[in-house]
C-alpha cells in the first residue's frame, strides 16, 4: 500500500505555491529528499543531465531521447518537474531552477555550511547508551498507543493531548459531545488498517496542515521532516542548529514515536526507524515493518509477550469463514472486531467468524475489502504461511463479493470540465486527457468531460494558450 503514501505527500506538495518551493530548495537535504522520493526515474535522468549543464537545453532535444510510444511517461516526467518547480522553460529551452541546482549540487558533492543533514553528536561518553532496539521499542510503543487510543478512547494508555488534538483536527476521530470521549470516524477506520509507513505519512501531512493554523512556518517544518529521512539510525543529533519552530516540532514528533529524546539530555535527539525510512523507497518501507516485528519479538520486558507473538502473525482462517486469533492484545482484538463477528474469548485465543453482515458493516464504516484481506494476510499465523496462497481463496473471493454486493454504484473521484469555448477546444483537450489515461467519461455533443486528475490538463491548457498567444504575435 506504499504508493498511496507517496500520493498523499505528492498531492500536498503540489498544492504549495511556487514561492514555498523556492524556500524549500534552499536546503540541500530537502532538494535531495524531493529528488529521491518524489520523481519518477525518467524525471531523475532529466534532472541529472541538466544539473551540470550551465546553459539551457532545447526541450525538443530532451524529448527526442524518449521513444515515441512512451509519450505518456515522458509527459508525466516533464509535468512532474514543472509542477514541483524543478525545471524552468523559456522559449522552448529547459533549465533547472537555479536554487535547486545550487543546493542539489551541494547535497551530492558535500561542502557548504548549511547543517541541513543534521549535526551528529558524539554520544560515546553517555552513561546509558541508546541502542537501536531501544529506539525501535520506543517507536513501536508510541505508535501502538496512538492506534490503541483510536480504537478504544477510554483505554488505560492515553497519548499526549497534542496527539489527541491532531486526531480530531485530521478527521480521524470526532468529538461527539462536550465532555465525552471522541469517537473514531470512517477515515479513522481505514487509517487503522493501513500499512505502518502510510500511517506515519498520513499523520505527518495532517500535522503540516495543522501547523499553518498554529502560525508555524511551514517550510521549516517540511525541512525538518525531510531532513529526518537522511539521518542515520542509532546516531545522536544536536538540537543546537534547529530553529524555534523545529524544536517545537521535535517535541510533537516525540509523541508519534518518530524521534526519541531523553529528558536529561535536551541538547540531542535520536531519529527512530520511523524517521529514517520516511524518504526512502518502497523496499525500505517493507523492511521497517519487518524490523519492527523483530523488535517486538525481542522486547521481552518492554512489551508484553502476547504483543510480540501477536505481531508475528496470529490469525488462522478456515475455509468455513471461522477465524481463530491467538492473541490477547486488546488492540488486535478491537481491530478484528471491526470486520468479524466475535465469538468466544479464551486466555490466549479469540474465536470469530467472517459473516456477510460483519463484512458489510465494515464496508459501511469505510473499510475496503482489500484492506481487510491485506490485514488478514499480513497477520496470518505461521501455520497459514506454509500454504502457497496464505488465505483460503474461497474466503478472499467471498469478502470481495460481499463488498460488490453492497455497491450499487461505481464511483470515481475527479473533476468535471465544462463550458469549452469551441468544438476544437473540447476535442483537443479530451484527446490529451485520453492519451494520459485520465479521461473517465466524455460527451462530445454537450462538450462535457470527466477526468480523474486536473493538474496535467490545466498545465497543458496553459501551455497551449501561451503557444497560441506567441503564434498570434508572430
Amino acid at each position, binding site marked *: 500500500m506504499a504508493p498511496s503514501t507517496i500520493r498523499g505527500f505528492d498531492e500536498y506538495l503540489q498544492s504549495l505555491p511556487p514561492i514555498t518551493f523556492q524556500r524549500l530548495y534552499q536546503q540541500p537535504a530537502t532538494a535531495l529528499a524531493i529528488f529521491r522520493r518524489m520523481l519518477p526515474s525518467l524525471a531523475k535522468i532529466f534532472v541529472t543531465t541538466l544539473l551540470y549543464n550551465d546553459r539551457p537545453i532545447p526541450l525538443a532535444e530532451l524529448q527526442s531521447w524518449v521513444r515515441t510510444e512512451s509519450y505518456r511517461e515522458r509527459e508525466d516526467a516533464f509535468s512532474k518537474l514543472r509542477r514541483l518547480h524543478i525545471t524552468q522553460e523559456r522559449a522552448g529551452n529547459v533549465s533547472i531552477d537555479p536554487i535547486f541546482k545550487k543546493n542539489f549540487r551541494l547535497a551530492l558533492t558535500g561542502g557548504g555550511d548549511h547543517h541541513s543533514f543534521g549535526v551528529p553528536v558524539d554520544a560515546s561518553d553517555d552513561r546509558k547508551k541508546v541502542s537501536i532496539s531501544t529506539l525501535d521499542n520506543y517507536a513501536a510503543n508510541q505508535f501502538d498507543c496512538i492506534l490503541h487510543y483510536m480504537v478504544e478512547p477510554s483505554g488505560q494508555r492515553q497519548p499526549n493531548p497534542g496527539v489527541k488534538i491532531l486526531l480530531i483536527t485530521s478527521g480521524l476521530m470526532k468529538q461527539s459531545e462536550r465532555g465525552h470521549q471522541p469517537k473514531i470516524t*470512517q477515515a479513522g477506520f481505514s487509517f487503522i488498517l493501513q500499512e505502518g509507513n502510510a500511517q506515519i505519512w498520513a499523520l505527518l501531512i495532517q500535522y503540516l496542515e495543522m501547523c499553518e493554523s498554529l502560525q508555524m512556518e511551514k517550510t521549516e517544518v517540511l525541512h525538518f521532516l525531510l531532513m529526518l529521512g537522511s539521518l542515520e539510525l542509532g546516531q545522536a543529533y544536536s538540537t543546537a542548529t534547529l530553529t524555534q519552530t523545529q524544536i517545537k516540532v521535535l517535541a510533537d514528533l516525540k509523541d508519534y514515536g518518530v524521534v526519541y529524546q531523553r529528558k536529561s539530555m535536551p541538547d540531542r535527539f535520536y531519529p527512530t526507524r520511523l524517521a529514517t525510512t520516511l524518504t526512502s523507497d518502497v523496499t525500505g518501507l517493507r523492511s521497517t515493518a519487518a524490523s519492527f516485528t523483530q523488535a517486538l519479538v525481542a522486547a521481552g520486558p518492554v512489551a508484553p509477550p502476547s504483543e510480540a507473538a501477536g505481531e508475528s502473525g496470529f490469525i488462522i482462517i478456515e475455509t468455513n469463514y471461522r477465524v481463530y486469533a491467538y492473541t490477547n492484545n486488546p488492540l488486535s482484538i478491537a481491530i478484528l472486531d471491526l470486520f468479524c*463477528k466475535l*465469538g*468466544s474469548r479464551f486466555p490466549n485465543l479469540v*474465536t470469530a*467468524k467472517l*459473516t*456477510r*453482515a460483519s463484512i458489510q458493516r465494515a464496508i459501511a464504516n*469505510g473499510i475496503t475489502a482489500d484492506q481487510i484481506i491485506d490485514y488478514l494476510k499480513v497477520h496470518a499465523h505461521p501455520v497459514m504461511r506454509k500454504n502457497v496462497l496464505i488465505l483460503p481463496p474461497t474466503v478472499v473471493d467471498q469478502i470481495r463479493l460481499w463488498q460488490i454486493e453492497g455497491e*450499487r*454504484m*461505481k*464511483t*470515481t*473521484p*475527479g*473533476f*468535471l*470540465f*465544462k*463550458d*469549452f*469555448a469551441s468544438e476544437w*477546444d*473540447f476535442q483537443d*483537450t479530451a484527446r490529451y486527457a485520453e492519451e494520459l489515461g485520465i479521461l*473517465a*467519461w466524455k*460527451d462530445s455533443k454537450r462538450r*462535457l468531460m*470527466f477526468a480523474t486528475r*486536473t493538474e496535467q490538463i*490545466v498545465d497543458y*491548457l496553459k501551455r497551449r*494558450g501561451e503557444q497560441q498567444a506567441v503564434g498570434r504575435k508572430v
Partner: protein
Amino acid sequence: MPRVNKGVLVECDPSIKAILLKIDQDAGHAYIIEDLDESTLVVKEQKLADLKHQLDAVLRKTSMQEREEESSGDDDGDF
C-alpha cells in the same frame, strides 16, 4: 479556459439513477452537480457518503423481506 468542478463520477443502473434523482430532488438538489446520461452523474464529493446512505435506506425499505431472510441465515454461527 473551460470551467472545472471537483466531484465524483457515479456510474449505476438506470433504475438506481432514478432513485438518486428522486433523493436529490427531495433534498432541494443538494447532491448532484451534473446529470450526464442515463447511467452517469456527477455528485458532490462531500455528499457522496450521505447519498449512499440515503440510497441504502430506500433500497432496504423496498427489499426488507428478502434481507431479513438472508441475515437470519448468517447468524447461525455456533461456537
